[in-house]
């Protein structure tokens, strides 16, 4: 479904954000992308929805090289959820209008827009909040509106960049509950996060990004992952193991 092959991303001034990254995400998977701040998680996520282009290497989405996909077409087939729901929701539009906005832009008929927007909001448990404005909703509810907007096109892939970042643990769990439902319904979900508790609780596949490089999941234990997410970064799994050995 999503495949990165030796992908490298360099920004201006030759700063390497992602270096020779390869991984695959299969249909129906729910994958966490974890790593300390500045590790390259957001760059990887942005490359998935073509907000950034790789400097070298290849990315495949739905089995097609991403450079062959038109951005608008790609984004209509994936749902993107960002951390900053405050600015990603339109303040002067209700929850329903925010979700309907996407379908209207695609020239869908009013009856279709009404049906699908209601369906998406109901799926996210917001049936009774449809006509509320963002400022009348809690942070978790606002993020769920953003997710409803992302799924209103029934995408097969949902890409979430730190969607729990601004939420308290209760709201974060609530959002996770709905993402799990969507995953069970068949959506492939990729989510970058800093939320250690959620990563531990969910027990999903984890892709660890450190200094722009993807580490092999098998070689890490959960406490090391916590260390990475907190920015207490060992240089490599071998150093980590050596460190453990010295301490013991």
């Amino acid at each position: 479904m999503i495949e990165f092959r030796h992908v490298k991303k360099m920004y201006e001034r030759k700063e390497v954000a992602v270096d020779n990254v390869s991984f695959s995400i299969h249909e129906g998977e729910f994958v966490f992308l974890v790593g300390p701040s500045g590790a390259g998680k957001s760059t990887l996520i942005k490359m998935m929805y073509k907000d950034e282009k790789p400097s070298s290497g290849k990315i495949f989405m739905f089995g097609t090289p991403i450079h062959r996909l038109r951005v608008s077409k790609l984004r209509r087939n994936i749902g993107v959820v960002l951390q900053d729901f405050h600015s990603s929701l339109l303040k002067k539009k209700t929850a329903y209008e925010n979700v309907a906005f996407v379908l209207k832009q695609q020239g869908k008929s009013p009856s279709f827009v009404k049906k699908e927007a209601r369906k998406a909001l109901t799926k996210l448990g917001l049936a009774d909040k449809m006509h509320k404005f963002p400022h009348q909703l809690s942070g978790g509810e606002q993020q769920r509106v953003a997710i409803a907007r992302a799924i209103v096109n029934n995408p097969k892939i949902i890409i979430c960049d730190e969607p729990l970042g601004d939420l308290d643990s209760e709201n974060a769990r609530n959002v996770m509950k709905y993402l799990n439902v969507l995953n069970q319904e068949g959506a492939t979900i990729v989510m970058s996060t800093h939320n250690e508790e959620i990563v531990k609780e969910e027990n999903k596949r984890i892709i660890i990004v450190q200094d722009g490089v993807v580490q092999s999941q098998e070689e890490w234990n959960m406490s090391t992952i916590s260390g990475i997410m907190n920015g207490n970064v060992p240089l490599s799994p071998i150093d980590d193991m050596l460190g453990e050995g010295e301490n013991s």
Partner: protein
Amino acid sequence: MKLFWIVILWISETFTGLIRNMWGNATAVLLTVACLTLFSVSYVVGLNATYFSKTLDNKIEIRVDIKDDVTTYKKYEKKILNLKGVSDIQFVSKETAYKKMEKEMADNAEVLHAVGENPFQAQFIVRVDNPSQIDGIVTQIKALHIHEDVQYGKEYVEKLISFTKTIQRIGYAVTVLAGIFTIYIVTNVIKYNIDKRQDELKIKHLTGAGMLTIRLPFILEALVITLFAGVCVYELFVWGYGKVEEIIRDMITYAPLLPKEGVLNDLFFPLLIISLGIGLLGSFISTQRFIAKY
């Protein structure tokens, strides 16, 4: 059906944008009206100048005052008529010239009678095909040595036309400058409208709206602004041209001015094209520069 709903969306977004920045858009309309008025005035002056010069071209004639000792008028009449570029010749005898003046002076004819002897010369009134050949024809007539004096209004006409054309050129130059300024204003108004809708644009980008869908409402906004300005200027001419024509005719009865209907017909398409051009160019610059691309 999809296209229908997209068009409805474009129209609704266009008018939402126009209402959101009502004052900015009103300012843009006013400035565009000023620019288009300058253009239209220059254009109409140009139309009238051309019409004026054509009218005068038809009226340009050479008046040859014939020496008293020349009697073989018919011979010279034929010679002049055979000159290249001469379209017509008319002989006016001393007596006819006197009677004509007597008639024109009417009540004041006594002054003429007081002169006593007929002071007029016999004349040839020569008409030419093309005023640009007039110099050559005059030289050839003078070479016949039958003239006491040769008069024609070419210099006067040329000066008048040159003056009108200078005014027209200044008008066009001012229009170009005003046009550039108006494009700058339209560009900035659309930039402001884009800035006001950055949140919407971000979501449109994120959810895969097409670039045309994103840009078109702004282009339509600019076109509505400049077309509305164009309509205002046209209406200004519908109302004002007749009045100006009336004022000029009060001052110069036989002023060769184009009729209102003809002017309005000739003005319509250039005004439409300039209005659309300013709108398209202004919005194109804005949408290219200020809307992020995929």
